[in-house]
């Protein structure tokens, strides 16, 4: 349409929104952001591992869209993925190293000064207080190559004995459960299992908002599946399910034992599989005798008939898959709960076949990389520090003197915190995690950070709660500003790319480690660690012969052309058996690269224990570490708030779009009945108090939390003031999900400020 005197159909404002064919496999895109080319890069938020097509103009990212050619996300992304570039441009990026001055402010310094201070202070601590006085806390948010470099540099170069990661807060339980049950930390599934299952059982998983792109796979299931959600809250996923079991918080272990009890009683067990592939079932069967559905009904609040009905569904011989997330992992008895699900899968033969499995859905984008290669509580490549053969193997591959490899395991995250409290740990190096917000029982943790002689924080932002407490801040490049690989929940290795220039003097963590190696004086040990891809090849060697063998992956280009590759992907060239447990004779574990896009484990019924058999592990359910009582009558549940929020929000809070998609201020979900009894109206400020701290939040009244329970999202910094330091004894994972609190209407009616 042409402009007339009275009507402007077009003009400069109209042109701002013109769209044009994007080419390069894209549909229409904003004309002003039309790319020269696009490159795929795996998203850096959660473990789904979606591939994003980054739109480049003059070599730099100007926009992105979801990659349609990738087997994980099939052209979809959640809002965090769509907004992945926004946090890179935040004004509070750390752009120079910072050093705490005598007046206790953080002042910019150059890299040389920062590195000298870091090395000098850490070496002084080591000299004065011994090798156990230093520790680091890592992350599941940086590429595997960087995680391995961090772990190797710290332990083999700097002589730091203790390191752990924020993965302790999310995945440790699944790791331990798998290791104990299967003999290796091996999530057995592939995402196609969502589509091929007849019965999907989700436990403590709000997949719809925590992993929305995986929910897509559930909806693609053409088998009209039963979708069972077991969660105290009526979540988005519970609403979308075909049945929801709103069990009482932490009655899960009793509940699953009752299901096993009933399945055993009905005789719907896979005896042939049990005999061939497992050990310990008879003991488990004996243990189950008292764990009747009636008893579980009492514990869980679910009627006995419904429990029996669910047991019959699981025992029906259909393809049943079990999926769990933080509702299981973040528990004081999470390992046994996860194993209760593994046991259900094993006893019904629901493993190694399409649409089955006991499947842990991971949290962070590279939690899986961290599990295998972070060199923290396990030696590189899923090995054990206490095993001399493992140490020798790693020393040989890395060309290191054998005695540089510690012969004992690191302290866990909680033990490092305890060590600081006891004054044993004096120097702490935190990389890409925000402990001051996320660690359980925050008031205690934050008080302890001040006790350190030296706290070094390496992060994209100088504004995190943790960076603000640091003595030295090292500015890091973020996702999109560096190269490397992530491993997703289904064991798929995918590539991330440098598509933006880091601000100021920020450096990729990889480069920071190179620099530190030089300043520490151990660069010669890391001569081969010259680029992320060079390290990837070292990791291939380290993996050879291990269950997580990736020696068949030729390099980064291979990952690109294959659309990511799941481990194991072995190359016979490396298969000089130096592993303690050689592959069982009848193993169908691929000897040669199997290029199938989606692969699951244990199709042959052989597990990674020396005898090839999976174990049944179980324990009596224990009471809540802090049960509700007369003074603290409510149970506090925590969890994800929305799909637009990521953990402590250091990145998601930097996007205007994402900020619109979640409540800016802390709120608490309270059951309407409780609210009426307490005289709380909608939006009233409510004080929530535990034995450890208190917070004030706006009341959101609903039926989706049960009476006697309240829910607060974990993303708000106040939430962990309330949580209770209790841990799973096997995995040392914190029990974030249930503690006892009081709920009090705050005195004043909430007033909105003008504006």
């Amino acid at each position, binding site marked *: 349409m042409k402009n007339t005197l*009275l*009507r*402007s*159909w077009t003009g*400069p404002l109209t042109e*701002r*929104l013109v*769209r044009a064919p994007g080419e390069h*496999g*894209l*549909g*229409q895109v*904003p004309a002003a952001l039309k790319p*020269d*080319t*696009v490159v795929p890069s795996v998203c850096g938020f959660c473990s789904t591992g979606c591939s994003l097509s980054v739109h480049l103009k003059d*070599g730099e990212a100007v926009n992105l*869209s*979801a990659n349609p050619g990738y087997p994980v*996300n099939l*052209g979809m*992304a*959640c*809002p965090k993925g*769509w*907004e992945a570039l926004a946090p890179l441009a935040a004004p509070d990026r750390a752009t120079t190293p910072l050093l705490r001055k005598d007046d206790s402010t953080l002042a910019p310094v*150059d890299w*040389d000064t920062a590195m000298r201070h870091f090395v000098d202070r850490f070496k002084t601590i080591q000299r004065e207080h011994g090798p156990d006085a230093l520790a680091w806390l890592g992350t599941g948010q940086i590429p595997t190559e960087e995680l391995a470099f961090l772990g190797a540099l710290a332990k083999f170069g700097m002589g730091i004995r203790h390191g752990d990661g924020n993965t302790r807060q999310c995945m440790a339980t699944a790791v331990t459960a798998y290791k104990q049950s299967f003999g290796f930390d091996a999530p057995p599934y592939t995402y196609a299992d969502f589509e091929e299952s007849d019965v999907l059982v989700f436990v403590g998983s709000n997949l*719809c908002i925590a992993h*929305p*792109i995986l*929910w*897509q796979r559930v*909806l693609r299931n053409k088998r009209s599946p039963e979708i069972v959600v077991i969660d105290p809250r*009526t979540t*988005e*996923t519970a*609403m979308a399910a075909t049945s929801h079991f709103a069990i009482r918080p932490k009655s899960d272990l009793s509940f699953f034992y009752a299901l096993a009890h009933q399945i055993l009683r009905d005789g719907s067990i896979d005896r042939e599989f049990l005999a061939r592939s497992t050990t310990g079932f008879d003991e488990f069967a004996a243990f189950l005798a008292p764990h009747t559905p009636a008893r579980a009904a009492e514990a869980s609040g679910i009627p006995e008939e419904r429990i029996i009905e669910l047991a019959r569904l699981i025992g029906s011989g259909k393809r049943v898959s079990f999926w769990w997330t933080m509702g299981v992992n973040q528990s004081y008895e999470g390992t046994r709960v996860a194993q209760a699900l593994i046991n259900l899968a094993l006893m019904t033969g629901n493993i190694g076949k399409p649409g089955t499995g006991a499947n842990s859905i991971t949290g962070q984008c590279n939690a899986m990389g961290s599990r295998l290669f972070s060199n923290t509580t396990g030696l590189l490549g899923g090995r054990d520090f206490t095993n001399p053969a493992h140490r020798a193997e790693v020393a040989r591959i890395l060309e290191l003197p054998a005695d540089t490899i510690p012969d004992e395991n690191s302290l866990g995250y909680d033990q490092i915190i305890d060590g600081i409290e006891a004054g044993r740990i004096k120097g702490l190096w935190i990389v890409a995690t925000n402990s001051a917000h996320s660690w359980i029982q925050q008031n205690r943790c934050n008080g302890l950070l001040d006790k350190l002689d030296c706290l070094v924080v390496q992060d994209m932002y100088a504004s995190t709660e943790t960076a603000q407490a640091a003595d030295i801040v090292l500015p890091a490049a973020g996702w999109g500003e560096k190269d490397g690989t992530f491993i997703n929940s289904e064991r798929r290795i995918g590539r991330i790319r440098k*598509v933006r*220039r880091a601000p100021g003097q920020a*450096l*990729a963590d990889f*480069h920071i480690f190179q*620099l530190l190696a*030089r300043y520490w004086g151990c660069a010669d040990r890391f*001569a081969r660690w010259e680029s992320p891809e060079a390290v990837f090849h070292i990791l291939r060697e380290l993996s050879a012969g291990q269950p997580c063998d990736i020696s068949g992956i030729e390099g980064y280009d291979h990952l690109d052309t294959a659309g990511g590759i799941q481990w194991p992907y072995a190359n016979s060239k490396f298969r000089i058996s130096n592993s303690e447990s050689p592959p069982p004779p009848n193993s169908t574990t691929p000897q040669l690269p199997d290029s199938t896009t989606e692969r699951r484990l244990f199709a042959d019924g052989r597990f990674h224990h020396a005898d090839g058999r999976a174990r049944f592990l179980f324990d009596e359910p224990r009471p809540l570490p802090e049960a509700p009582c007369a003074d603290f009558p409510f149970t506090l549940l925590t969890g994800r708030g929305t*799909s637009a929020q990521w953990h402590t929000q250091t990145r998601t809070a930097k996007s205007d*779009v994402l900020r*619109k*998609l979640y409540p*800016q*201020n802390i709120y608490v979900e309270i059951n309407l009945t409780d609210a009426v009894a307490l005289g709380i*109206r*909608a*939006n009233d400020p409510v004080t929530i108090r535990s034995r450890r701290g208190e917070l004030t939040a706006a009341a*959101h009244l*609903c039926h*989706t939390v049960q009476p006697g329970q309240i829910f607060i999202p974990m993303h708000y910094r106040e939430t962990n003031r309330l949580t209770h330091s209790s841990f799973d004894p096997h995995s040392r994972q914190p029990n974030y999900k249930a503690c006892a609190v009081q709920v009090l209407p705050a005195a004043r*009616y909430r007033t*909105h400020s003008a504006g």
Partner: protein
Amino acid sequence: MTVFPPETDETPIDRLLRRQQTLDTPVARFSKEQAELEAPRFRELIPLTAPAPGRQYAFEVDLDKCTGCKACVAACHSLNGLDEEETWRDVGLLHGGTAREPYLQTVTTACHHCTDPACLNGCPVNAYEKDPATGIVSHLDDQCIGCQYCVLKCPYEVPKYSKSLGIVRKCDMCHGRLAEGEAPACVQACPNEAIRITTVDTAEEAARHRNSASGGSTFLPGTVDPGYTVPTTRYTGRPVPADARAADADTPRPEHAHWPLVLMLVLTQGSVGVLAAALAMVDPLPALALSAGLCLVGLKASLFHLGKPFKAWRAFLGLTHSWLSREIIVFGAYFPLLLGALLLASPPAAWIPFAPPGFVFPATMGAALAAGLAGVFCSAMIYHDTRRPFWKLHRSAAKFFGTAWILGAAGALVVAPSLPAALLLIAGTLAKLACEARHFHPDALGPDKPAVGSTRVILCCLLRVHANRLLLGAAGGILLPLLFLAGAVPAAVAAVLAFGLCLSAETTERYLYLRAVVPFKMPGGIAS
């Protein structure tokens, strides 16, 4: 390549910083590979052909598949190149049900491309266009004057005003994509295929929404009667329980103050009131001067409300459908008439070569007053036409004409202090305060009273402002005229103070009027 080659002058740190700043993405290879892919166009989610006559495109949302991922919002933002803080889609939350059967439902929402779009009907410059072939309601960004009346008119919060651009923008259903057989951004981006484009029969939609036999809502609970604009979006899936409520339904949230509008309304109404008072005066000149002064400032203030004031001359285009257009035209006539009256009332000067006939002055005065009263009525209709309960005609007109009365009487007191002026001021103030007090009468607070939301906003968020309004009104409109009558203070001082206080009181009242209104909207998320 080694990391620290000893032979170069470059320090290791400089070398790493340089490497960090180098982008070496393999452009050529990926261009080739990606070009071989055909873009996914999601054709199965859009109609195969353009709508037949009598039909139009519409969004269809399967609520069973909308599970709260909100990818549609972010994808719309990125694929349409919106400004950093701008979003055209939103996702709200409905909740309800019972303790035994809780209900929770996320609701994705964008423009409903109504068959009778309120935005289009309200626009004074015809910056909206409903495409006759597709029914898509699009916005002409270069035609927009940034008056934001569409923002008030749309009951679904669709048009979004950009302060930096000075215009509103909105969802155009990606019409350019549809024209090429490609799905809109939100449709492409929904992992669950919850959003699709269908065609609907416009007459059927109007009948369905306007003649609903059941009397129940034919749209989502808590939204405006869909008969108002006839939205075309269809929400399918499990029926939404009638008692479901938006997560933000109980959150009192004051609206924007729109200060230029506050001043424009109060001052133009004051001007008309003073003009009316001038009619009764022996020497109308000072009153006319005051009236003209108030009007001038008021109209000037209104320009500050516009993002693109230089395009406002086209405001007559909407005369047939927009009360804003009518208001602009009527006040556009009022001001010259008022100036004419002022000139005619002035002592003959050298520049008037002859004395006009005697009927000209009263005719001009009369015409000006008629225009002024029509203008105030148009102002009231602008707000009434949004259908917001707090702005219904009886409330708006009472307030607007009340302001004219009060400021007319107070103005009269200033220019020609008199007993009737003082009594009229007291009477007007009492009447207006009584009117406003009715919001707080227990009867008005019942759940079925439509303006109860506004009362709640005042009670919980604007109570101090409301108290100020009462104090200023009582002081300026009652106490000072009484003091004047009693002769307790010098007449001039009392009059000027009364006028100043009344002006402040009316301005405060108007601020409350704009801030305490509760707009219609789609369900929002948990309030923050």
